[in-house]
C-alpha cells in the first residue's frame, strides 16, 4: 500500500505576520500567521511549517510565542524552522509545542548539531532543511541564512550525509524555483529522493495544483506550498470574497503592525504580481486524488 502524501502549507513568519516573498526576497505581509494556521488546520492541512523569516538577522528563533499561542487551536504536527543553533534551542521549541525542528544554517556550520539533536530528542523531530541553489555549472549547492548566503557544500551529497547524521526527514527547497510559481524543481527532487531513505518534503515553486502531483511522481513523500494556498485565503480589502466564504475569520489588514502591507491595502498588481493560481487545500487534495495520489480525507 502506498503512503498518504502529506500536504503542508509553509508559513514564513515575521513578528506576528505571515509574509511571502519571491526567491526569499521582496516580502509582503499577508495577514496574521496564527489566523492562517487555524484556517489551514480546519481546511485539512496535514502538517504546518513555521519558518522564522528574520531569524538569521537576529541569530535566534523568535517563534516560541506564536507556536504556544496556536497550540490550543491546531492539532496537527508543526515543524519550526529558522535560527535554531543549539540543543537548548531545540528543547525550547519542542517544549513550546513544536513537534519537529528544521535546521539549515547551523547544521552546515556544525553538522554534529543534527546528530546531537537526534540522539537527545529522537530522529523523528530533527528535520534537515536544505535550501539548494542550482548554479550555472548545473550543480546544486546549499545556501544558508534564509536563502541569502551561498556555501560550497554540494546539496545532493549533503542530503545523503544528513541521513547518516540521524535526521528523520528532509525539507528540500529550491531557491531558484521558490516563489516563482513555475512548479517544483523536479530534477532536484528526483536526485535527492533516489539517494535518501528518509521521507522527503518538496518545497519551493508550486504554482498550481498540478505541480503537487508532479513533485510526488518525482519522489516527494510530502509537498509543501506557500503562495499557492496563502493567496487563496488571503485577499486584500477590495477582494474579500474568499474570506467571507470561510466565515470571515481572517481579519486581513487589521492588527497588522509591521512590514510591507501594500498588498493588503491595494491588492494585486505592479511588478510583483502573484505568480500562482491559488487553490484551497481541499481542491488541491481532490486534484491530487484524481491524479492518483493518495491523500488524507479530513472528514
Amino acid at each position: 500500500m502506498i503512503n498518504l502524501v502529506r500536504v503542508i502549507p509553509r508559513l514564513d513568519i515575521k513578528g506576528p505576520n505571515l509574509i511571502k516573498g519571491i526567491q526569499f526576497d521582496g516580502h509582503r505581509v499577508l495577514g496574521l500567521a496564527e489566523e492562517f494556521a487555524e484556517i489551514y488546520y480546519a481546511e485539512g492541512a496535514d502538517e504546518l511549517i513555521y519558518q522564522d523569516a528574520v531569524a538569521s538577522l537576529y541569530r535566534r528563533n523568535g517563534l516560541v510565542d506564536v507556536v504556544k499561542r496556536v497550540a490550543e487551536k491546531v492539532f496537527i504536527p508543526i515543524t519550526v524552522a529558522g535560527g535554531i543553533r543549539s540543543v537548548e534551542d531545540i528543547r525550547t521549541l519542542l517544549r513550546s509545542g513544536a513537534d519537529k525542528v528544521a535546521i539549515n544554517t547551523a547544521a552546515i556550520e556544525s553538522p554534529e548539531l543534527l546528530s546531537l539533536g537526534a540522539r537527545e530528542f529522537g530522529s523523528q523531530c530533527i528535520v534537515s532543511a536544505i535550501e539548494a541553489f542550482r548554479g550555472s555549472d548545473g550543480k546544486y549547492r546549499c545556501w544558508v541564512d534564509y536563502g541569502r548566503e551561498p556555501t560550497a557544500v554540494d546539496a545532493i551529497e549533503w542530503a545523503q550525509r544528513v541521513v547518516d547524521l540521524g535526521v528523520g526527514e528532509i525539507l528540500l527547497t529550491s531557491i531558484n524555483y521558490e516563489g516563482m510559481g513555475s512548479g517544483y524543481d523536479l530534477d532536484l527532487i528526483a536526485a535527492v529522493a533516489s539517494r535518501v531513505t528518509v521521507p522527503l518534503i518538496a518545497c519551493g515553486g508550486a504554482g498550481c495544483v498540478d505541480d503537487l502531483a508532479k513533485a510526488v511522481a518525482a519522489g516527494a513523500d510530502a509537498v509543501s506550498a506557500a503562495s499557492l494556498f496563502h493567496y487563496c485565503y488571503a485577499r486584500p480589502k477590495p477582494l474579500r470574497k474568499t474570506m467571507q466564504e470561510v466565515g470571515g475569520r481572517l481579519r486581513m489588514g487589521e492588527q497588522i503592525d509591521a512590514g510591507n502591507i501594500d498588498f493588503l491595502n491595494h491588492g494585486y498588481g505592479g511588478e510583483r504580481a502573484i505568480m500562482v493560481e491559488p487553490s484551497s487545500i481541499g481542491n488541491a487534495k481532490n486534484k491530487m486524488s484524481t491524479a492518483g495520489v493518495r491523500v488524507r480525507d479530513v472528514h
Partner: protein
Amino acid sequence: MKRVTIIDYGLGNLFNLETALRVVGADAVVTSDPAEAQRAERLVLPGVGAFGPGMKVLREKSFEPAIREFAASGRPLLGICLGMQFLMTESEEDGVHGGFDFIAGRVVRFESEQAGERVCKVPQISWNALVENERAERPWAESVLRDVPVGANMYFVHSYYVKTVSPAATVAYTEYGGQRYSSVVGQGNVHGAQFHPERSGAHGLHLLKNFLEL
C-alpha cells in the same frame, strides 16, 4: 471535570498532549512524582525515543512500581506512541528489552527492504488509516475509538511496531511497509495508541475525550 495525570519522565513533548487533553475538557496535570502518578484517577504514559533507555529512565525515577500498582488498581491507563510499546512484553529495539508486560506482545522494527527491494521508508512519518479488528476483546465501539469512524487517519511517527500475541488485545490494525500491526490496543483497563492523538486532528481529540469517559 475529569482529572488526567500525565507522566513526565523527561522524554518527549508533553505540552501538546496536555493542551489537547485540556481542550477536550480534562483537568490535565503533568507530574514527575511517582507517588502522584500512582494515586491518579486516569494515567497517561507518553513517550518518544528509544525503548531501552526509556524503560531505564522509568525504573531510575521509580515510575515502574508506581505504574504497575496503578495498572493493577483497574483505573484507566493510556500509553501513547513509545508509551504504548512499554505496555508490551518486550522490544527488539537495540537488543532485547523488557517492558511492563501488561499486554503480551512484541515490539519489532519495520524492514525498509524486503528481498533486496525498498518497500518503505523508516521511520514511518505519515497519516495512516485504522482498520477494525473484528476479533478484538474490546470492540471498537467500546474502546477509546468509540464514535471515531472506521478507517480514520491518524498521525504516526515510529520505526518500531507492536504485534500482540493474542489478536484479541488489538482493537485496530494499521498497515505499513507490507506489515499489519497493532495501532490501538486494549485489554481490561490498559489502552494504547501507537499514533499521536494530540496531533491527529479531530479524530485524535475524540480518542482523548473517550479516554476521559472510560
